[in-house]
């Protein structure tokens, strides 16, 4: 049987990062081939290459139905019958179900009756029942997902790529989706399936390809793997010693949460504590509730239930002002979006969070500037002077500015959300050094990171979240990639 899709020796290098190295992948008709790997293992990059959004480095080959693809582009790959449904549906929210299904159809003049018949057919193929005239904005997540799949298959797709299709679905919706995948497989469609839910992929997967840190680990038949084996393959070797964690004496508990909840974002009864001088790692898969927990703690989405204690005294944090008052600081994940204001200068960015304290009623620029200059020196921000626009700095240096803004506030509890995401190795090491320096001074740090080796290397303890709940807390010394992953996977025992 000729494979529907073959990816051979795929590598991808972004400036400074090798996202993929020599990855092999093959998809046969009528099989569900699961692609596995931790966050950042290279799964998304591989899909982007398969769908023509990115190009492989020299030496890599894309082969569709036995024929090499010359210059792949999204349109070209679509024409070859390769369709992808991404985690976040890209639909036209104001337009009807029917129109979303038929938007890419040919023909300058539209026959609405033909469209109606055709959309009904498309939905029937996947056994979905949706009102054709409803605007998509009114659909539930599961319905949007079905719509995306119906649309993807309409372009006579023989290969369907599903990226975490069940991540946003609950209970029966997820079941229906899996049934659909099995039905499509029976129809001879080849399905590349990505999911973090091991139970689910063990149920429907025929073969498994595992990636780790951009490298190709191997492809395995269903009969050769079980849950434990897959986790082991994904986790791989012990971490290398690149983290300069220095043992710091651990003091009293400074912050404690008891049964902290934020209903709308799914934070569910999280009880944790963090001590003076401690780095508490927060692990979990995408969507496990790490950022949501941090936002609740910081008063951005005030807790709907549960208690927060600071120095063993109950406190109410109902807004960011409260959190600042208790000397909490939160450096958010998306640097460009929330971390620094790119149009302001370094000095302005740093003094932003303490305008009130530093200035009284009137701005005192010289005070601001002294402070900024001090932090720029301490954190080693590489910039001509403190009056350059933050926009002109590299990612690593912007992150230092974001960090400086909060450190300038002299916090006791610092929450860092993915502080080293997307910055180069040198800057990363600097950030780690700064973290150690501050815990030495008695600060407590909560570190959210999707990079397991960073968590294992930097933390004293690692709290693992799963589906908005605390799945377990491990002392970093005893934790391994495997034990953390085991807790993070949703169907852990």
């Amino acid at each position: 049987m000729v494979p529907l899709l073959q990816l051979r020796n795929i590598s991808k290098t972004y400036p400074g990062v090798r996202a993929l190295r020599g990855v092999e992948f093959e998809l046969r008709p009528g099989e569900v081939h699961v692609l596995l790997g931790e966050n950042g293992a290279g799964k998304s990059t591989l899909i982007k290459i398969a769908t023509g959004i990115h190009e492989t480095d020299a030496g890599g080959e894309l082969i569709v139905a036995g024929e090499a693809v010359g210059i792949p582009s999204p349109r070209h790959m679509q024409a070859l019958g390769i369709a992808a449904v991404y985690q976040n549906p890209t639909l036209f929210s104001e337009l009807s179900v029917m129109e979303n299904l038929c938007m890419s159809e040919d023909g300058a003049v539209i026959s609405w009756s033909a469209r109606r018949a055709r959309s009904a057919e498309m939905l029937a193929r996947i056994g979905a029942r949706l009102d054709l005239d409803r605007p998509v904005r009114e659909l539930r997540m599961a319905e949007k997902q079905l719509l995306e799949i119906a649309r993807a298959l309409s372009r006579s797709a023989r290969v369907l790529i599903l990226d975490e299709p069940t991540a946003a679905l609950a209970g029966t919706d997820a079941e229906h989706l899996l049934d659909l995948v099995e039905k499509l497989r029976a129809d001879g469609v080849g399905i590349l399936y990505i999911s973090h839910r091991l139970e689910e992929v063990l149920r429907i997967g025929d073969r498994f390809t595992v990636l780790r840190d951009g490298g190709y680990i191997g492809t395995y038949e269903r009969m050769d793997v079980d849950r434990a084996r897959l986790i082991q393959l994904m986790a791989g070797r012990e971490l290398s010693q690149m983290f300069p964690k220095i043992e710091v004496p651990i003091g009293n508990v400074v912050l404690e949460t008891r049964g902290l909840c934020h209903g709308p974002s799914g934070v569910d009864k999280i009880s944790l504590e963090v001590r003076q001088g401690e780095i508490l790692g927060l692990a979990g898969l995408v969507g496990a509730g790490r950022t949501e927990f941090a936002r609740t703690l910081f008063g951005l989405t005030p807790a709907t239930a549960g208690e927060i204690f600071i120095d063993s005294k109950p406190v109410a944090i109902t807004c960011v002002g409260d959190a600042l008052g208790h000397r909490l600081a939160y450096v958010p994940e998306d640097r460009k979006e929330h971390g620094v204001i790119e149009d302001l200068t370094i000095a302005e960015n740093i003094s932003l969070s303490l305008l009130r304290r530093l200035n009284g009623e009137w701005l005192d620029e010289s005070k601001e500037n002294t402070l900024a200059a001090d932090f720029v020196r301490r954190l080693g921000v590489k910039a001509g002077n403190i009056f350059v626009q933050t926009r002109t700095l590299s990612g690593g240096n912007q992150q230092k500015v974001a960090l400086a803004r909060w450190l300038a506030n002299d916090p006791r509890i610092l929450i860092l959300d993915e502080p080293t995401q997307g910055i180069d190795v040198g800057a990363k090491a600097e950030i780690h050094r700064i973290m150690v320096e501050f815990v030495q001074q008695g600060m407590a740090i909560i570190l959210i990171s999707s990079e397991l080796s960073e968590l294992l290397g930097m933390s004293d303890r690692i709290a693992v979240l799963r589906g908005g709940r605390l799945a377990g807390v491990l002392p970093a010394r005893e934790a391994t990639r495997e034990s953390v992953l085991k807790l993070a996977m949703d169907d852990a025992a």
Partner: protein
Amino acid sequence: MKLGPREIALLGAIAVLFTLPLIGVSGFYTTGNLRNLIIDNLPILIAAIGMTVVIIAGQIDISIGSQFVVCGVVSGLAAKSGLPMPVVILTTLATGAFFGAVNGLLTARFGIPAIIATLATMVILRNGLIRATKGDWIQNLPSNYQWLGLGQSAAQPVYILLVAGLFGVAAWALRSTAAGRSFYAVGCDHEASRRVGINPNLVIFASFALMGVLAATAALFNFTRYPSIESNAGIGLELKVIAAAVVGGTSITGGRGTLLGTLLGVILMGTIGTVFTFLHVNPAWEKAIQGAVILAAVVSDTFFRKAEARG
């Protein structure tokens, strides 16, 4: 065409408005008055067609008042220079297309937000015109320019039919051609559009270019009615037109709207003033009522959206 709650509400409001003059007011329901009412609103309807498309595509064009008057002056000067009328018309439309293309380039190609780009072209065109004409009106227009040489009584029904035809074609094209739907697609989501093979920048450019041509068309239907062209005409046209589109149910955030709604919006907003004049209401109230209608349209929109979102 199916009527949504918005269209029904508008029809209701229009019905009320047209009932008011029946109560002891004479002169409103005369052929002459009604015909004037329609003729006066033709240019607004034409511009509102373009504006609806621009807003559906997620953009806005506030330079149309300036485009409108400059196109009018160009047409008048072209006519006075002795060019035959078909050439005058083509020149005017080409001028509008050019202005629209500039707006399109600024937004689609250079990524300048539409409100800023068209604010700039609005000011530039308006002040450029004042400089060029020194505020003088264009007078002594040739007789083949006025009413296109048809004479007022013969021309008026022709104008109405032409605009009705234009409206019909535009409504059909916006609803039932792939090109028409691409404006909706882009107004909803650029990324989703790209995925189905639509080039958002091209569509945005096209919406502005079309707006320019329609602004020029509106100018022709407007200025050929008068013996002279005022160089300060068209001030505030953009507000009237945007208001009509929004009242007609076009979502200011893009992706939603119909030309039927816009037509009803134009009728409602364009008739309030005349009805109030016949009812001897203080003209100062007219603008206030128009504002209230806009507010009611937007608030009801938000309200319905929230109700929908709650399911």
